[in-house]
């Protein structure tokens, strides 16, 4: 299942909440976290990274890892953090609205 439009951005931002990651690590964390329910192709993830970077929500830097591997690492910017928070509350509102429609009796 492909994520809803805009949700991908939120998921990427979320994956960077606890520290900088490189592209492959982001892909892995999204795949692991979703337990294969949501299938995010790298082909969609990578353009999203570039888009978020252009919007100034994430920033990137080349770093050399412990294994002497060079990789481009992305981190959240303050603007990105703010964006993540607003997305998160919007998402929560959306989910509860959908839930109310799907299970009207659960109130």
């Amino acid at each position, binding site marked *: 299942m492909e994520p809803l439009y805009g949700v991908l951005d939120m998921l990427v931002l979320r994956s960077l909440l606890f520290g900088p990651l*490189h*592209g492959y690590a982001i892909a892995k964390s999204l795949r692991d976290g979703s337990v294969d329910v949501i299938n995010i*192709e*790298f*082909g969609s993830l990578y353009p999203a990274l*570039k888009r978020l970077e*252009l919007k*100034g929500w994430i920033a990137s830097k080349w770093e050399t890892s412990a294994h002497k591997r060079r990789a*481009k690492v992305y981190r959240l910017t303050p603007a990105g953090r703010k964006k993540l928070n607003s997305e998160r509350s919007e998402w929560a509102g959306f989910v509860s609205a959908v839930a109310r429609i799907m299970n009207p009796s659960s109130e």
Partner: protein
Amino acid sequence: MSMFFRRLLLLLPWRRRAIDQDMRDELRSLADMAEPGELGNLTLAAEDARAQLGWVPLEQTAQDLRYAVRTLVRAPGFTLAAVLSLAIGIGANTALFSLIDAVMWKQLPIDDPEHLLTLEQRTATGAAGGFTYPQYEIFRDSRSGLDLAAYGYARVDVSIDGVDEPAADAHLVTGRYFPLLGLHAAAGRLLDESDDRAVMGHPVTVLSYPYWQRRFGGDRSVIGRTMTITGQSFTIVGVAPPEFFGVEVGVSPSLYLPVMMQPALLPANGSLLQNPNVLSTWLQLIGRLQPGATVPQAQARLDSLAGTAAEWRVRDKFTRQFADVRLVIASAAAGLSDLRRQFSRPLFVLLGVAGLVLLIACANVGHLLVARAATRRSEFALRLALGASRARVMRQVLVEGLVLALSGAAAGALLAYWAAPALVAYASAGQEPVILNLSPDVRVLGFTAVVAIAAGLLFGSAPAIRAARADRSTGVRLELGTGGRARGDRGPGRLLVVAQVALSTVLLVGAGQFARTLQNLYRHENSVDIDRVIAVKLQPRGSGRRTAASAPSFDRTYRELLTRVDTLPGVASASLARSSPLGPSTLGFLITPPAGGGPVKLASTIVYPRYFATVGIPIVKGRDFGGDDLRAGAPRVVLVNEAFVREVLKGSEPLGTGHGVTVAPLGVRFQSQGAADVPEPLNIIGVVKDSRFPGLRESPPPMVYQTFLQANTGSGQMVLHVRASGDVTAIVRSLSDLVRAIDRDAPLPSVHTLADEVNAALVRERLVATLAGIFGLVAIALIAVGLYGLMAFTVSRRTSEIGIRVALGATRSSVRWLIARHALGIVAAGLAIGIPAAWIAGRLTSRQLASLLYDVTSTDPAMMVVSAAVLLVVAACASLLPVQRAVRIDPVMALRRE
């Protein structure tokens, strides 16, 4: 930083390359980490990422551009024809627009130009005038809230270190002039209030920057040196700033001098500062509002001065009434300009004509593009079949059009850069040079760009739509096979040529009217040999103020001069007149008709004997003035023209005094003969033909010719007229020497022939007629090319059809007729639209054009017939070659090719 700017920065090619490289590195490093194939298609990911950065449309446009340039370069003949057509069209428009810009809109290079004002006296008829010095003083001291300065024009003789220089244009300025304009000297200082205190007390001058560069090579040490101006020594105190050319558009004085030095600089008029002459309104006024003042307040204050002790209005010499003039305060942000009044309308008319030329050029290029598109149908069909979107194919054709248009615009701008000054030079031929600031500004560049883009879209749209219509499935098969013979593609090409013919009809009718106007103005009766009549303005010292005491001495000077001129070899006859025949008559003559009633004011002029023979006006009855009539105290006699006999005497016998018309007594001083307060019979000794010189639009009014001593005038200046028996140039030199002898201090006399004067008077008409004529020729050439192209294309497409017809027995003449009919049909359709369009255009513009036409109406049917005939001839010539080719088609060859 907003997204937009970040995207914009990404457009920089080196940044794009760096980011591309960075993405490649990153993807490679990621691929190293992941399992093979785990990340999918990385090239596609990079492509999509690039799309996120907004590059795709840009890259496609760049591709389109590269491709357009490549295809255009591969068809040099087509490209050259198209770019040349556009260059002429756009160049003509840009040149005219930059002239209009310079004359109408460019602001003066001064401090705060928006708030510079000018003060004018306007008569009821709208004619604007300057002021006398006392009028300026009244306004300056009126506490109107206006800070005023004045300047007047003078042409002065210059000599430096005892060597005579060419005469220079000067502005005589008041002390507030430069401070008011807010200018700062390029070197030394400018004139200020300290140079405006005592009459004849400030022999200092400021050089204009161009004059300083031209004459002194920009040498700073000239400050403090002296130069002799009109016989008086002046110290150079400074140089005006480089961009400043005075406040009048089209005039560029070399020297700025204190107005207080006027008596020395304009010696013919005496001191206009202390003894003003009401006729010498030689000063122009500029001003700014003082803080807190408003224009209506200032206007009201100045208006209230009329009728007070500080009355500024001039009294009419004859009626003693105050002249009916109003003061007008207007903006002078773009400078004062006589040029603007004279040329704004012709320039806009010409811009309209140039617009037509551009439309015709666009039609031509569009037509060429359509023809090309037809041969490229298979290419478009293939591209569509391979998955290109219609928008993409259309865009590519449009980009090609824009590339053409922009190349045309660049070439056109170059053309305009050369043509605009050439036009100015042409318009000012034989007159004072007109100096205009023609450097392209934002307005001109913007105009050119808009015109070019509009042109590109205009002629690019037809082929673009056709390209997108190319059929994707059947197209490839058909078009690749037979090289293009679909039926529908005759339409737009033919329509464009029809449109061209229609536009040219309108243009040719217009151009014809201007040419006829010029012809009509040149074809007056007195146009014989006017290139052999020389006119020289004489202004001996003091002649600006003629008095009863000084008149006889001027008369003596003039008669002696005439005697000497008569003895010069090569002179057929010589005489003097108050003004040249084309000049305005400023002299009035009051008569009382026999029927009674009030006195009537007629136009009059002063002439010496043999004037009529010299300028070529025949005496139809009676005699010329003779030596006896020039004596002091001789009985008053006059000559009149035929209009006088017709309108004043109603055809009764003119000679003698029997007609009963009397000279009305003058309420003012009569300088040469004392007061003439009793009505005196008008003694007419001769009648001359109405003088109809080329260039004059009105038929001559009733006119009275008087002798110098008997005329009532405050001015003693005359114009020497000399008819040369042979070549004019041979006697000009000796003539100037004789004239110089009258007054050594007067500026070098300007010597010109009446033909020069006519040309100068008709400069507007010549400019309009010449340019419209050139545009007409260009239009004809464009049409010939367009029609030839269309016919050649038609013949080559119908080769097999013609082959079959010939094989089936069609004669040569029927083949010829087949093709000719096609061409004629197109021209006929064009004319059917063009002639009514020309008529409508003529009706709509008749009011605007009225002042530019003479003896021609803007809907002249003859002109339409001529234009139609011209276009038919052009069409016949243009289709000659294609028709010949059609006739020579060999049926066997034609069918085999199929």
